[in-house]
């Protein structure tokens, strides 16, 4: 048998096999090298573009007001690295609509780089260590900017003076001053709100008026929400309250940023306190009147439009569709208050300039452009992020967006508001969310005793903050 096989294989056939093997090895070598090259290119490409101007930009230029440096002699390309507006369609908006008017007006080109928080953090750290900064403007969430500022990587923006024709809500001003410097300029905000189908107002419980709910009065409490949902169920037979507790839903934000601050005054610190146990028992009771399909909802726009639920809580971007489709049916209302206040999450994105950035004057001009009220309205209309300047809301035309802006600004201005910020935990963020969801599943869905479930999870929760060495998020600290 073997002899026959040998005879059958000629040297030519063997040569063909060798060639095939060589080709296969070459192919493998190319594919394994491929990704490595890809990751290095985006890091490297910006540097040649900024190297030349870096040498020519006189570092000694006195910090004149931005208006005086308008004529740009040398062509400047700013590197704008942002963890926000990263999805493809949002990047297309930034590159095709948001930035071109700025370039036309000032002659400054902007290269927008959508980047993850981890990548941005690594890149900034290595640039700081190498002493060669290429990023001009950073767009990131408060938590990330807080971390950068704590490391001394950000420029104090107070030297540029204040921006003309705009005011920032006090809460945003306060948060943007970090570690003794003006660390960033508030850029955009986002939050989570309750949306009510106007039909639900026909079933308000005794003592609660439509005005209480819409204005966020002291009568609009979690107890009132429970009474309302109960009333709705008893009169219509419908479990009309809904939450996005599906696998991709944001229900964990409701737990750690709304219920926990409202009932315990903190997101993390009082995780297994008596107040927390009371809160979970409240949620257990409330869940009797919550649409059972909630654990499959990822976003509340569709359930609201289908009429499956009449009252829903979700991220503004995820209920936008319901309101734009039927603006006259829905109203956006502030969140109810609990025993410790009206806890809600405010997502703040800010714009910062790294220390030793190559073009600080031009970068400040970009920040000025991005925080103009009309630019902010453009962002709201296209991407759904809310403005960070008070003047912008006056520029929103009536219609669906106005419904949302009104609701959000009422929530921001309630006197008992207790702002919660999402902690900046990087890769551990998922685990943080998972702890609150696990507590919910075990206590509310499986009926376990909160006094037994919470201490076990609290240990995990504290471990995360220790591992990442992150500060507890407001309102905890």
């Amino acid at each position, binding site marked *: 048998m073997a002899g026959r096989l040998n005879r059958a294989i000629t040297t030519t056939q063997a040569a063909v096999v060798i060639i095939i093997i060589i080709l296969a090895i070459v192919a493998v070598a190319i594919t394994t090298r491929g990704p490595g090259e890809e990751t290095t290119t985006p890091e490297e490409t910006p540097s040649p573009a900024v190297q030349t101007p870096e040498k020519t930009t006189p570092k000694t230029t006195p910090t004149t007001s931005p208006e005086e440096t308008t004529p740009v002699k040398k062509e400047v390309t700013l590197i704008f690295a942002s963890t926000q507006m990263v999805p493809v369609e949002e990047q297309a908006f930034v590159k095709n609509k948001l930035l071109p008017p700025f370039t036309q007006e000032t002659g400054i080109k902007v290269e927008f780089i959508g980047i993850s928080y981890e990548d941005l953090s690594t890149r900034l750290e290595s640039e700081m260590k190498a002493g060669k900064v290429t990023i001009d403007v950073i767009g990131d969430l408060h938590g990330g900017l807080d971390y950068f500022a704590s490391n001394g990587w950000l420029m104090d923006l107070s030297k540029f003076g204040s921006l003309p024709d705009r005011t920032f809500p006090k809460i945003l001003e306060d948060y943007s001053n970090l570690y003794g410097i003006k660390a960033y300029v508030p850029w955009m905000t986002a939050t989570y709100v309750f949306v009510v189908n106007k039909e639900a107002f026909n079933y308000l419980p005794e003592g609660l008026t439509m005005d209480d709910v819409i204005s966020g009065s002291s009568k609009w409490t979690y107890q009132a929400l429970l009474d309302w949902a109960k009333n709705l169920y008893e009169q219509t037979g419908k479990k009309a309250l809904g939450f996005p507790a599906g696998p991709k839903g944001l229900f964990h934000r409701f737990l750690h940023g709304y219920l926990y601050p409202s009932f315990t005054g903190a997101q993390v610190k009082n995780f297994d306190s008596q107040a927390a146990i009371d809160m979970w028992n409240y949620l257990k009771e409330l869940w009797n009147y919550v649409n059972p399909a909630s654990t499959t909802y990822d976003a509340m726009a569709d359930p609201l439009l289908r009429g499956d639920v009449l009252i829903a809580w979700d991220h503004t971007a995820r209920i936008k569709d319901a309101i734009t489709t039927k603006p006259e049916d829905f109203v956006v209302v502030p969140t109810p208050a609990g025993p410790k206040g009206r806890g809600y999450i405010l997502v703040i994105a800010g714009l910062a300039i790294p220390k030793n950035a190559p073009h600080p004057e031009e970068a400040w001009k970009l920040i000025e452009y991005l925080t103009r009220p009309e630019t902010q309205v453009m962002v709201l209309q296209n991407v759904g992020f809310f403005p960070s300047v008070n003047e912008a809301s006056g520029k929103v035309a009536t219609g669906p967006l106005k419904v949302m802006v009104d609701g959000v600004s009422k929530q921001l201005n309630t006197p008992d508001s207790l702002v919660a910020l999402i902690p900046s935990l990087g890769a551990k963020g998922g*685990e943080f969310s998972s702890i609150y969801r696990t507590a919910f599943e075990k206590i509310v869905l499986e009926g376990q005793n909160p006094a037994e479930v919470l201490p076990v999870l609290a240990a995990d929760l504290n471990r995360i903050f220790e591992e990442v060495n992150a500060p507890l998020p407001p309102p905890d600290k």
Partner: protein
Amino acid sequence: MRLTPKHKAFLLIAPAFIYMGFFIAYPLSEAIYLSFFEEGALSLANIRYLVGSPLSKFTEAFRYTLTITAIVIPIETALALLIALFLYNSFKGRDLILYMVIIPLTISDVAAGLIWYSILTSNGFMNNLLISLGLIDQPIQVFGSEFKVRMLLAIVVTEVWRSMAIVFVILFAGLQLLSRDLIEAAEVFGASWMQKLTKIILPMLKPSLQSALIIRTLFAFQIFGVVWILAGRNIPVLAGEAYYELTELRHEGVAALYALIIAAISLSFGFIYIRTLRARHLEVTL
């Protein structure tokens, strides 16, 4: 250049070795490393997390994966066999039925999940039909954490509908290869329909059954898309947990461990099938 027979033999098996090394040995060693090593040192942290952490749904996922497999595979094998036997005889309209049975084969699991979700959801076709026929007043809720049994049922229905086709194709092809002489001989000797089935068709169909069962069992342990669409993490399964641990919690090691567990279960089932379903008659004659 002269090549000795030994060299030639090595050359000939080299491509297969390179292929297996690159696509099997390398990923497997990486998975083992991710699962059992942490910063270069041997560590059982991932196993401890898997069985001990309140965040882990391993035991539930293991139970549900086995349950779904144990329900789906017998049902779909029996159904596929019945349909294959039914279509073994030629009659008018046979081709049409054949195509209808095979259609789900062309649909991805996620698409199948979405189709059945839209049928079974509270505003879906099923509820609308039942309400318009006056059989029910309120829609029947199938999805949601309160309805685990209903969701499991929905998963079983979708999985059977989707994957029965592959079992059917294999069994149907196997039937075509059966020697009609044997069956005719049996008929001459007066064998009943049942006798023909149990003494001739089924024993000779063993190799096809074996292939179908191996393929389906391996895929059943990897079940993911259908469950993820229909039940999310309300019904956790092994592959779904691997995905969740990796993408949401960034626990690469735990995800790799899940992959290894799925591989280990699949391998042991494959081994059992090969052992128990060996077609002895055929081996003797060959």
